[in-house]
């Protein structure tokens, strides 16, 4: 039954997860700029605080105090609704991620997961497919040609890559036999990571994740050389901040999902042979999980500053003619291997 302890525990967990997600998204902008500077042999932000560590706060404050301008011919309601939907859809996926196994607090077992849905993978897929609305609504409401063009690009790109992503996930669930994220993570106990079982599926998934988050090789929706500023051309102030922030949250969330689905989540080698207490092992697991997430996020940034942008027809050809047949092939092979 719903008792007080349960409600308090979930409330604390929800606020903690939300706060951590936002702080990490904030500092990803800093990491991105520092790493970009490193790749290009520059120094990067170094004025606010030691090593520029306060730069994200300064950026946030700047966004807050700027005027949130709404163009005269824009649809005012939808113009404000767009960034909000982007932000909400980006944060929603955190609800089913298993951040750690469980903590023992005052004799209660507290699972470090907000909701263990038995359709967790499908929930993630549904939330991912909602992300496109924020971009579509905002881009259309701006009443700007460039914004509309980029909206069309963004939505067709996201829908196309969702298909390959979904088929890669089907292959994964075929080999794990469950849709609950917690079970998928615990099945990878002891180094049996899914990436060894589904290498092709993982490659397809990570390419689709790049496309879904509109990151660099596929960032055509905000391609400056062709489309001014992309779908957020008309935005300013905190509304623009929401769009940019949602992109970083999406990056964090997709790294988290990949770490949980393919890299064993909070499992690490010699998990139980260290002879530590249950709580300490859990906390170590959380740390290991975040290390995996940060490694994947570094990969995202690394790719962004290394690989040039695709052309739009190349993007569509890759999605429909390469990734989708590969994903179907992967699913067939997995199914046949399971049958044998």
């Amino acid at each position, binding site marked *: 039954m719903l008792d007080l302890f349960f409600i308090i525990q979930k409330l604390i967990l929800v606020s903690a997860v939300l706060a951590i997600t936002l702080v990490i998204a904030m500092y990803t902008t800093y990491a991105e700029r520092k790493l970009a500077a490193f790749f290009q042999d520059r120094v990067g932000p170094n004025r606010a605080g030691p090593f520029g560590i306060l730069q994200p706060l300064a950026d946030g404050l700047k966004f807050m105090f700027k005027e949130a301008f709404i163009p005269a011919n824009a649809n005012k309601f939808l113009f404000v609704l767009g960034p909000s939907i982007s932000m909400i859809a980006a944060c929603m996926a955190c609800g089913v991620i298993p951040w750690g196994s469980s903590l023992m607090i005052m004799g209660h077992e507290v699972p470090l997961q907000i909701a263990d849905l038995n359709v967790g993978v499908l929930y993630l897929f549904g939330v991912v*497919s909602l992300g496109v*609305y924020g971009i579509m609504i905002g881009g259309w409401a701006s009443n700007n040609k460039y914004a509309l063009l980029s909206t069309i690009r963004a*939505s067709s790109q996201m829908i196309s890559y969702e298909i390959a992503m979904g088929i890669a996930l089907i292959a994964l669930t075929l080999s794990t036999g469950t849709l609950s994220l917690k079970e998928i993570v615990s099945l990878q106990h002891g180094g049996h990571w899914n990436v060894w079982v589904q290498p092709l599926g993982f490659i397809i998934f990570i390419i689709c994740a790049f496309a879904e988050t509109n990151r660099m090789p596929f960032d055509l929706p905000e391609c400056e050389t062709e489309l001014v500023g992309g779908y957020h051309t008309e935005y300013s102030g905190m509304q623009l901040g929401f769009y940019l922030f949602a992109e970083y949250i999406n990056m964090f969330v997709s790294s988290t999902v990949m770490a949980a689905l393919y890299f064993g989540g909070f499992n690490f080698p010699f998990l139980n042979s260290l002879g530590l207490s249950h709580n300490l092992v859990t906390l170590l697991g959380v740390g290991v999980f975040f290390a995996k997430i940060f490694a994947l996020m570094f990969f995202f940034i690394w790719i962004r500053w290394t690989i040039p942008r695709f052309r739009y027809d190349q993007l569509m050809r890759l999605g429909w003619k390469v990734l989708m047949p590969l994903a179907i092939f992967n699913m067939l092979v997995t199914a046949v291997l399971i049958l044998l």
Partner: protein
Amino acid sequence: MILGLFCFLSLLTIMSALSVILSRNPVYSVLSLILCFFSIAGHYILLSAPFLAVVHIIVYAGAIMVLFLFVIMLMMRTSDVGLTSWVKRIGSFFVVGVLGVTIVALMQRGTLVLPRYLASVEGSVSSLGRVLFGQYAIPFELSTILFLSAVVGVVMLGKKS
């Protein structure tokens, strides 16, 4: 609490459905329909069918409504073309009135015997999958042919001749 949730969801469903057919701007219609689908998904969860709720969101909100929004944003001026002739309008209310009266009358006379209690059945993935791939395997396979023909048809229609 469940009763309150049911009433809230029902109110949301009806209000957003009305907004779909009454909005002047088609974009608002699409957005209200998305809201309506979310509240229907909430009903599915209340009826312990979580799998259907999630699939409903993926199929309707994730795919179908994006298609609608796409078509409206790309090719329609948001100006409205208006309503049909008043004969049809009055006729539609008449038809719906008859439908409503029939349902209420059936309930009043006790012809529709509805069970009082929910049996313990959960629309989980495994139980639903067992029914779908056991009893309904052939219709399921046939539906893939329907999908294939739809894909071919849409590609043919979409080509500029």
